[in-house]
């Protein structure tokens, strides 16, 4: 496990905030990853090119950092059934709730949107409840 590193956390977080601000300033789009991906794969959606470009940039970043010497670590994952259930919940939930950690958590709160503040509080609460259940209640 990587030790707690508040400086890297702050630098990385600032870059995320910068990316969201720049995308809005330059293209007038919200950097909500669930929305970008959802509209990219939606057969009825339009305006795919910039969304694809954003996703390509998102995947290219870890590869570029790996080339610069920052280790590309495969994340720890649960077993297959849990992975599939988790993916389905994240996909369906972010579409129904119109946003994820970036769309509501960063961009929405940055706009001081009450709707996004409620969404963020809700997904934080159910995520914490899920971890509490999986790690502590099922022992």
């Amino acid at each position, binding site marked *: 496990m990587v030790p707690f590193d508040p400086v890297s956390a702050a630098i990385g977080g600032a870059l*995320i905030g910068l990316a969201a601000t720049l995308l809005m300033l330059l293209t007038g789009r919200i950097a909500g990853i669930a929305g970008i991906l959802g509209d990219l794969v939606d057969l009825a959606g339009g305006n795919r090119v910039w969304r694809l470009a954003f996703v390509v940039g998102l995947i290219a970043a870890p*590869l570029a950092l790996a080339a610069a010497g920052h280790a590309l670590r495969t994340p*720890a994952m649960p077993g297959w059934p849990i992975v599939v259930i988790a993916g389905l919940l994240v996909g369906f939930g972010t579409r129904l709730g119109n946003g994820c950690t970036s769309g509501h958590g960063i961009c929405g709160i940055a706009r001081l949107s009450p709707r996004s503040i409620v969404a963020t509080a809700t997904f934080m609460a159910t995520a914490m409840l899920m971890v509490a259940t999986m790690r502590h209640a099922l022992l």
Partner: protein
Amino acid sequence: MPVLSALLCGFIFGAGLVISGMTDTTKVLGFLDVLAIPHGGWDPTLAIVMAAALVVSIPGFWLVKRRTRPVLAHTAAWPTKTAIDRPLVAGAALFGAGWGLAGLCPGPAIANLATLSPLVLAFGAAMIAGMAAHDLWRRRQQSAALLAGADG
């Protein structure tokens, strides 16, 4: 130019996720594990990442909002929904449950595709399937509502 900007922003966003440690599921789950706080095993990284992102994006968005239009587009697609309704809360609750199960939300899930880990690829495929299922379900509901309206 807008496409290049999107590519650049995606890249900066992804670099931020990697540098901050948010592509590491153990750090995300370590933050969500609030019951570990009394034992000293809690990982506050995600809170710092979010705070740092907001320190930049709150004044950033405030400045951008004062402009009449984006630099490279005619209009800004500011979100228009303001209602705190059932789909918002139900969707956020389901998303949080999935996030807590695997420690991956959409951004880190996509960035982690770079590792070509079969389990991350499976998560990505399931996430896209979940999005498609939602869109299909909502279109069926809408067309059913339209038909009901036509009959009435």
